[in-house]
């Protein structure tokens, strides 16, 4: 499922003419937030002395909405801030939590830093790769799971551990990993 499918029927609430930051005419974006989401964008922008500070929160919202941050989404978000698409691109590429390509329905991020390593993280990574039939950095063919290996998630007392979407999963064993994977549809 691509992010664009989910925007079907969304309100095109932007009254901005299709010009870029320099006033040059550009094609209208093919993605858009709903009217309600645009209200949320304005609320977020109002929280800061400089509305551009809401860029990260709005990018989080964009990723939830469109599935990932495509160049098209970057261009759309830039328009909401009067920022250049290049600035938004620079920001998106700097942070590890923004996906620039479609991701799986679930993201499994296993920690590979020192405390988890000492508690057997390499075996957990190998087990995950084997069970999912993919390497770290890849998504299963059915689009179910994207597998990442990440730096310390700061739950080292429960090593080895991983993050599954919004949830931390602690004290991993191969059996526990299997149970968690079975729960992901």
């Amino acid at each position: 499922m691509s992010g664009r499918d989910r925007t079907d029927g969304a309100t095109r609430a932007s009254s901005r003419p299709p010009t870029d930051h320099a006033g040059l005419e550009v094609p209208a974006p093919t993605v858009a937030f709903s009217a309600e989401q645009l209200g949320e964008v304005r609320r977020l922008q109002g929280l800061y002395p400089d509305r551009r500070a809401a860029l990260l929160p709005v990018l989080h919202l964009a990723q939830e909405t469109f599935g990932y941050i495509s160049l098209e989404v970057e261009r759309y978000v830039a328009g909401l801030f009067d920022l250049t698409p290049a600035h938004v691109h620079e920001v998106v590429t700097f942070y590890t939590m923004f996906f620039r390509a479609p991701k799986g329905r679930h993201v499994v991020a296993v920690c590979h830093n020192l405390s988890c390593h000492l508690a057997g993280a390499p075996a957990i990574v190998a087990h995950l790769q084997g069970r999912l039939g993919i390497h770290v950095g890849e998504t299963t063919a059915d689009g179910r799971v994207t597998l990442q290996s990440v730096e310390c998630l700061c739950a080292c007392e429960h090593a080895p551990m991983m993050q599954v979407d919004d949830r931390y999963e602690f004290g991993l064993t191969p059996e526990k990993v299997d149970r968690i994977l079975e729960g992901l549809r």
Partner: protein
Amino acid sequence: MTAEKILTRNFERADSHTLTAYLETGGYTAWQKAQTLPPAAITEEVKQSNLRGLGGAGFPTGTKWSFIPKNHTGPVYLVINADEGEPGTFKDRYLLERDPHALIEGMLIAARAIRSATGFVYVRGEYVEPYRRFSTAVSEAYDAGYLGKGFDVVVHRGAGAYICGEETGLISSLEGKKGWPKLKPPFPAIKGAFGAPTIVNNVETICHVPHIITRGAGWFASLGTKTQGGTRMYSVSGRVRRPGVYEASVAITLRRLIDELADGVTGNGRLKAVVPGGASAAILRADEIDVTMDVDGLRNAGTMAGSAGVIVMDETVSIPEALMVVARFYAHESCGQCTPCRESTGWIYKMVRRIVEGRGRKDDLDTILDVARRGAGTTICAFYDGAVGPYISYIEKFRGEFEALIDGAGARVVATPASRAATAHA
């Protein structure tokens, strides 16, 4: 000395994160008291308490607050660093989840001291549950009228980048940019977030403030050493029987922390090495753990208190392999602005990795040490110094183990008698 729980006193309560629970245990009375004190008196009390920043650098908190220009009339911001990311550290996660109102009350008092009307709390992006818990507490505090009357709190989520924990990187990120650190001076207290004077403090640092106001600077100072007051939260992980968060005096020794609080070493039961202050602290050998955990105690021992993330390694752990994991982290997280940091972190990771994989070259160790020593202190932020500490200390203190790998002793050292012997005369 380790008996008193201050920050963690409510952690056992299932509802410790709620306003009800916080009020039942005396919550927001320090804020009532602080409202009767002039701002300068609050700063002075915090100075006298010898509270030192618990985010990593250990800077005296009251002194930092006093750097806000006295005649400044525009906005002043209070920014809370909840970007916890130092490998081996997890204390702020506990505070956000289990005692969020302590942070809010501390922020109210700190804001009065520095005359700030707006506070930002920068929570690392991966901390979704801590973010929710803390945001709920902020709503409760607005409903109860603690917030919104002269002081507002904005909770901000990061998006995954260790360098955003460095205070100027954090400020750039808060402003909606990539998290590139800036050269200091100017320090944030002069020119910080949105160009205004800004105090950046760690979550745990600020959580101490209500107690200092209620019980007094003298009480707080007496809990620690001559130059650092109070208790702090130690995150203990790695090869110990009971990994977890422990609150104890800053004057506790590393040995007691490992043996008594974390219940001793696992693996083969014999300690080999400890990282005392998060991954960026220089490593200590088993015979170097009779040190106190305060900022100056660990500095005198050639390492640092940092974030108090204690990572324990028993004799079966391969030090070269541990360095490879840590070096991979620095290679991944360098923001890329400074040449020494960007280039060395990448190359040193590759070299340590080839040593671990049995492809090391004779002069690799000296090359790494040389490159590390030359780059130290030359970069925009302290990230690279934080990488140099481990590079140099792991190799200098366990050189024999690295050499055994280079000399073709095998692809990995796994506590063979030979590797122990090599370490012994290293």
